[in-house]
């Protein structure tokens, strides 16, 4: 779990409680690691689309493993076969394990049947990142989009997942939205299951 690490100083080392150990990783450690990941990939590619794809692929591997781990740990004996089931699983359980809180909102797209959106006021991975103007619409949330795609793909719901900035009035930093567009077969299967 990623969170802010708090250290309490004890005067005598023998007074320190024998804890189970923190279940959290320090936010700064993750931020440094993620910034290195972005920097490393930036030196290897020529254009923005390639950079986005690489971050997504990195997230995909994380997503696949997170799905296996969480299904074993949290869900016990149940498998997700319904669309809403897997979406609420991502929105609450996966987000809680990865970022320490549930996602801000889960919405169904109005224009198309197969679009869903998970939005977050500020993605944890983007907290210490500001995109230079000449990179246009690039969003480091592509990593999180990759995680979501990894989870969906391995659970049997192939989808195209992207991350977008959505400007909100009254707020300086725009909101981030993860847009999930399911493949045709998922919708057909969902319709068949009733």
């Amino acid at each position, binding site marked *: 779990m990623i969170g802010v690490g708090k250290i309490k100083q004890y005067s005598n080392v023998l007074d320190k409680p024998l804890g189970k150990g923190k279940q959290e990783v320090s936010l700064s450690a993750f931020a440094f690691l993620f910034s290195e990941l972005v920097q490393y990939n930036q030196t290897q590619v020529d254009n923005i689309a390639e950079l986005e794809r690489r971050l997504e692929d990195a997230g995909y591997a994380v997503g696949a493993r997170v799905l296996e781990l969480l299904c074993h740990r949290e869900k016990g004996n149940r498998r997700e*076969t319904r669309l809403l089931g897997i979406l609420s699983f991502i929105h609450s359980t996966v987000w809680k394990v990865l970022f320490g809180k549930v996602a801000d909102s889960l919405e169904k797209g109005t224009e198309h049947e197969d679009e869903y959106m998970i939005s977050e006021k500020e993605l944890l991975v983007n907290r210490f990142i500001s995109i230079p103007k000449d990179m246009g619409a690039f969003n480091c949330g592509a990593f999180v989009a990759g995680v979501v795609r990894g989870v969906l793909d391995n659970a049997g719901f192939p989808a195209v997942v992207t991350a977008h900035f959505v400007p909100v009035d009254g707020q300086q930093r725009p909101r981030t939205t993860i847009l999930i567009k399911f493949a045709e077969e998922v919708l057909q299967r969902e319709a068949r299951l009733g």
Partner: protein
Amino acid sequence: MIVCLAVVGHQNNPLYIQSFTEADDALKLHHIVHCSLDVVDERVNNPKKSGPTLNETFLGLLYPTENYKVYGYLTNTKVKFILVTTDLDVRDTDVRNFYRRFHAAYVDAVSNPFHVPGKKITSKSFAERVSTIVKSFGLSSSS
């Protein structure tokens, strides 16, 4: 006594096959595992539509052959664990326990960053853990 254990990926590709007895022909055991995959697919695609069993990971006894029993377990990523055993009086709870520990070992093996999903599991520690679990299964159910 467990004679064979197999992990099969979601495209029915084998990820890990291990037989624990030298007496029987390994190829015959592989065939049994292969046939049981059809039974798994049939169970998954035609669910019995009875509420709680629809999404169960543990599939239970798939089919009994001449002197073997074959159990199945399906994870959330469509990865199947097939267990072939010669015991005639295996309790359901024992098998479920076994699968729980096996699933834990499998999750640890997959979390390895050097493991490519879809390729065979080559981790030695996974093999050791599995053989420990298999040994303790034999002891608990024979008592």
